[in-house]
């Protein structure tokens, strides 16, 4: 079992399941990804997108239906999980309820046949790393959710795995603890200098933790890129929607000039940037709420006029909904003093209007 590595290569990793009535579906289709040492990779997507399937395939808990996994030059996909030696943190922690905290953390070392004299100091070191000292002899049932999660992390890292796999590890924690543990996970990743694959459906978690994000949908990879790129330049409409582009309008293409596209709706005229080749006369535009601003000057390019339909006070600013005369609804962030029912003009810079091919949905 290796403790050190250069890269883990997933090549067209596929997993099929038999659904009801003998129907076979791809839970994961041809995932190709190279994870380098020191990298933090987040697999991001809604539930059922295949991200946990991908993680279980890497861990060896699910056999592959196709493709290969290599750790440097060694092919590891035929190996059972116990011979891969990847540390895994489960969503519900999966702590052994009958073992004390030290026994839980030392379990992997005992399985590897590490001498008892060596186990104690390594467990103590892992406990210090996750700041759990003083809880050594408690049973998991006597710990809080946050402490249980730390035990699960310590248990996974104490075996010094080349790769740490985390399956939505924060989803059972409350909001405050989630933020704290998130920072902890990033710190632990830096200190260990191995690689982490982190499954989540929370884009904030993925953006704040990862070096690269793999966005998935229906078992298929949509985009693999750095957080800043996934945030600002989503590769398709699905990724845009998932990354918080709440305003999606379906408009008619009037003119294409380079990558600039002029689009028109019943009472909306917008210029945007083309992100994918367009087909046909219809296209969808995606805009983040925070990129729309209430305009004060005279009507000009990329101005939409509408009536304020809803205002949600948010402290520093408000979340405002406006409805155009044609019935299109836009969400934006704006000043807290906007009056309900007022007519406003909102502006969005053309480079922040992302244009994708029309996807057929009218929401």
């Amino acid at each position, binding site marked *: 079992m290796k403790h050190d590595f250069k890269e883990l290569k997933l090549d067209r990793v596929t997993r099929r399941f038999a659904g009801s009535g003998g129907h076979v579906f791809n839970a994961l289709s041809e995932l190709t990804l190279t994870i380098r040492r020191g990298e933090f990779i987040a697999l991001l997507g809604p539930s059922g997108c295949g991200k946990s399937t991908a993680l279980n395939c890497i*861990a060896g*808990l699910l056999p592959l239906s196709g493709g290969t996994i290599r750790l440097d030059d060694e092919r590891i996909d035929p190996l059972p999980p*116990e011979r891969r030696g990847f540390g895994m943190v489960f969503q519900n922690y*999966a702590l*052994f309820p*009958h073992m004390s905290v030290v026994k839980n953390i030392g*379990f992997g070392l005992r399985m590897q046949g590490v001498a008892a004299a060596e186990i104690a100091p390594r467990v103590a070191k892992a406990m210090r790393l996750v700041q759990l000292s003083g809880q050594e002899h408690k049973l998991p049932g006597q710990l809080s959710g946050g402490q*249980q999660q730390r035990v699960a992390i310590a248990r996974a890292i104490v075996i010094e795995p080349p790769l740490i796999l985390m399956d939505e590890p924060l989803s059972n924690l409350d909001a405050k603890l989630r933020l704290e543990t998130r920072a902890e996970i990033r710190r632990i990743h830096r200190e260990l200098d191995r690689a982490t694959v982190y499954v989540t459906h929370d884009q904030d978690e993925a953006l704040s933790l990862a070096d690269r994000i793999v966005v998935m949908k229906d078992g298929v990879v949509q985009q693999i890129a750095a957080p800043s790129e996934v945030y600002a330049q989503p590769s398709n409409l699905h990724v845009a929607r998932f990354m918080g582009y709440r305003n999606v309008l379906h408009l008619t293409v009037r003119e294409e000039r380079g990558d600039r596209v002029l689009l028109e709706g019943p009472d909306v005229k917008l210029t945007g940037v083309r992100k994918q080749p367009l087909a046909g006369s219809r296209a969808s535009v995606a805009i983040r709420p925070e990129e729309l601003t209430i305009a004060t000057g005279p009507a000009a390019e990329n101005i939409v006029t509408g009536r304020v339909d809803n205002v949600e006070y948010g402290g520093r600013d408000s979340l405002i909904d406006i409805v155009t005369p044609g019935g299109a609804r836009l969400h934006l962030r704006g000043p807290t003093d906007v009056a309900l029912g007022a007519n406003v003009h909102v502006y969005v810079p053309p480079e922040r209007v992302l244009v994708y091919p029309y996807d057929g949905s009218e929401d």
Partner: protein
Amino acid sequence: MSATPAATAELRAQRAPFDRALLLVVPATAFMLALFIYPFVYGLILSFEPPQGGWLANYQKFFTTDNLWTTIGKTLNLALPATIINVGIALPIAYKMRVRSRWQRFVTTLLVVPITLGTVLIAEGMLTYFGPKGWLAQFLQLTHIYEGSIRLTHNYWGVLISLVISGFPFAFLLILSYVTGIDPVLARAAATLGADSKAQFRHIYLPLLAPGLAMCFCLAFVQAFSVFPSAVLLGAPAGPTRVISIAAYEAAFEQYDYSLASAIAMIMGFVQLVIVAFVLSLRNWFYKGPVTGGKG
């Protein structure tokens, strides 16, 4: 100083109101009192009222008469091996059956069928199959696998086999429910930490199953210890399978000495109690809480 009516009402409201659902316990309590507690106490008192001699005469007689006190050993000699075999075989099969598969349902049904057969029916079948001229003996001799005489009925082995056949389904179903109650994610976590399937069984399943196994052992033992029909039909009721229930039956219905029969029944209960208490005390060595891996 008297409290205001409002304050009194408030205090009354604070006191836990009588839960009328508790009345549902009444029939069961009455049933227990009439059909268990009363006969037990009646039998206990009766056992201290022998027709002749002092109040301990029945117990003195039991422990000084050779064909009475030896029944404890003979019954234990059947019940303990039968229980160990049943629990011992049921555990690995139930462990294998924990994963849902095409065969799980079929095998489970097949294994549980003997539960529907009474001990008398099992005895009848065994006499035909295992008897000196039974199918098994004929088959073994025909194929020259074993030429000697085969005696698996009307002796110790006949009763033991019958206890295994009738007791196994109980042990199997009980252990299966314990095994499937253990969160499978624990075994997966152990696997990622380097535990192969043997180590997963030893370090995860076995310790978590131990309290359930102890409970299963007790139930299977109590069932086997009260063996009666198969000891008569398949055993040698005058010899090695003269179990304690036969002694009690003879005292009650052949000698019409209900007082002695009650004493034998009390001794039978006491021996069971000692074994059960011992096995249950072993449970304290193991973890007994919920068998899941955390929140979720």
